[in-house]
């Protein structure tokens, strides 16, 4: 009798599609793509078992650059699409890609409720503190005094604090990473995927075109000087008092993910179709 064939492990490179990214040269998102594929390879996943879902923006181009299933959806609505997919197909690994504009502004409400719902998703937000695709408008995480042609004198608005908001809303895993550390970021993404429930990973990903000063981030980031906690209040205090450059898994909880039963006693699509028959 022949032994069952065992699929060979897939290299990180093999998770990339043939499409060449069109991000600006120097964009941090190139390295985030590399971290995605390294994380998938590290977890020994197969492209046909992964769905990468995104909204709109530079970072949201990522699904096309992988050879996994992909859905490049509506602005700010990636989490809604991803939640539906994961609930219907819990066997898939669902990773959601977004940016600070798509995720925190247009999709801000979905972000809150995805944290609260705790569907088993990994939400990766590439944060560069600017709307890059639409030519450099301030985003929710832009500093209030960022002076540019499109925001003379700065917006004067308080910045959105995504990690604390994720904690307050119930995310089960909260981490901050840096695109300039692709291997470290891959480890964090892999950890986020492995952790059941809603995992939120904010990646500082410089926009060298509209925020050239973000090249300095590589000098500012550092491993968080504390170990991961399972106490959300303690994690929130730490995040509120750091300078935004501590990298690592900052919170890991143990909430049970939301997953309704599938198929048993529920209507099938054909039943629904019958109800609408004329």
């Amino acid at each position, binding site marked *: 009798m022949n032994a069952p064939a065992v699929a060979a492990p897939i290299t*990180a*490179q093999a998770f990339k599609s043939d499409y*060449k*990214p*069109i*991000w*600006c*040269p*120097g*964009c*941090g998102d*190139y*390295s985030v793509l*590399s971290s995605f594929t*390294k994380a998938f*390879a*590290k977890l020994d996943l197969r492209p046909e078992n992964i769905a990468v879902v995104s909204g709109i923006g530079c970072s949201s181009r990522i699904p096309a650059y992988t050879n996994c299933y992909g859905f490049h959806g509506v602005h700010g609505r990636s989490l809604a699409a991803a939640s539906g997919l994961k609930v219907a197909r819990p066997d898939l690994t669902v990773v959601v890609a977004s940016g600070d504009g798509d995720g925190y502004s247009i999709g801000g409400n979905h972000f809150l409720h995805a944290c609260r719902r705790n569907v088993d998703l990994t939400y990766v937000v590439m944060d560069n503190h600017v709307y890059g695709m639409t*030519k*450099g408008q301030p985003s929710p995480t832009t500093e209030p005094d*960022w*002076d*540019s*042609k*499109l925001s003379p004198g700065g917006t004067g608005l308080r910045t959105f604090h995504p990690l604390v908001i994720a904690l307050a809303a119930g995310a089960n895993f909260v981490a901050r990473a*840096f695109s*300039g*550390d*692709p*291997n*470290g970021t*891959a*480890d964090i993404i892999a950890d986020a995927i492995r952790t059941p429930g809603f995992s939120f990973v904010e990646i500082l990903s*410089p926009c*060298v*075109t*509209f*925020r*050239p*000063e*973000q*090249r*300095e981030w*590589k*000098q500012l*980031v*550092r*491993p*968080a*000087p504390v170990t991961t906690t399972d106490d959300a209040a303690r994690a929130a205090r730490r995040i509120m008092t750091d300078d935004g450059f501590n990298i690592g898994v900052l919170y890991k909880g143990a909430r049970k993910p939301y997953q309704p039963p599938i198929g048993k006693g529920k209507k099938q699509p054909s039943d629904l179709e019958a109800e609408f028959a004329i």
Partner: protein
Amino acid sequence: MSTKKSSKGSPKKSAGASGKKAATPGSAGTPKRAASKAVKPAPIASASEFMAHAYAMEAEAAERYAEFADSMEVHNNPEVAELFRKLSRIEQRHADQILEQMGWKQSPVASGNYRWKGTEGPETADPTELHYLMQPYHALQIALINEKRARDFFAHLAKSTTNAGVRKGALEMRDEEAEHVRLIEEWLKRTPVPDSNWEIDPDPPVLSD
């Protein structure tokens, strides 16, 4: 390391909208790497582990140069794309030679478990140094920095290790990287130096500037 870049034209200035001067740590010298680990990495313990690191360094460099080549190709800079492609092929050849020498099908050390001093291998180029209007001279400057960083990595390793096999390998690799530094310096001498306005684009992609 003191690989001060020429002020003649490092690919540093972005077509930024802010009007602020770009923060360009790379333009002042060898780009520093952010510390990746909270604790000091354990030393490389054996000659085999050393070769795995040497392999990873070359493979990571090849991958990054290929990524740069793709980026330049997409941004209609075929000359620099070809140069990065060539650098990628060279690094990949070095990586393949190590595999062949060791009789490995793949590296025995998993990706992410390498003991770099910073976040990436010493020969891996810094992506934030790219510019869509960069010229071959700039690409070679980036390569020169990487080769110097690799040479210094092996030199430091040779000095600091207590393992004779690791020291022997590190000294060989240091000399090899020093030769690459020399070759790139020669290459740079044959390459036209960009004029001071190389980054000026009469029709820039950043409309708000």
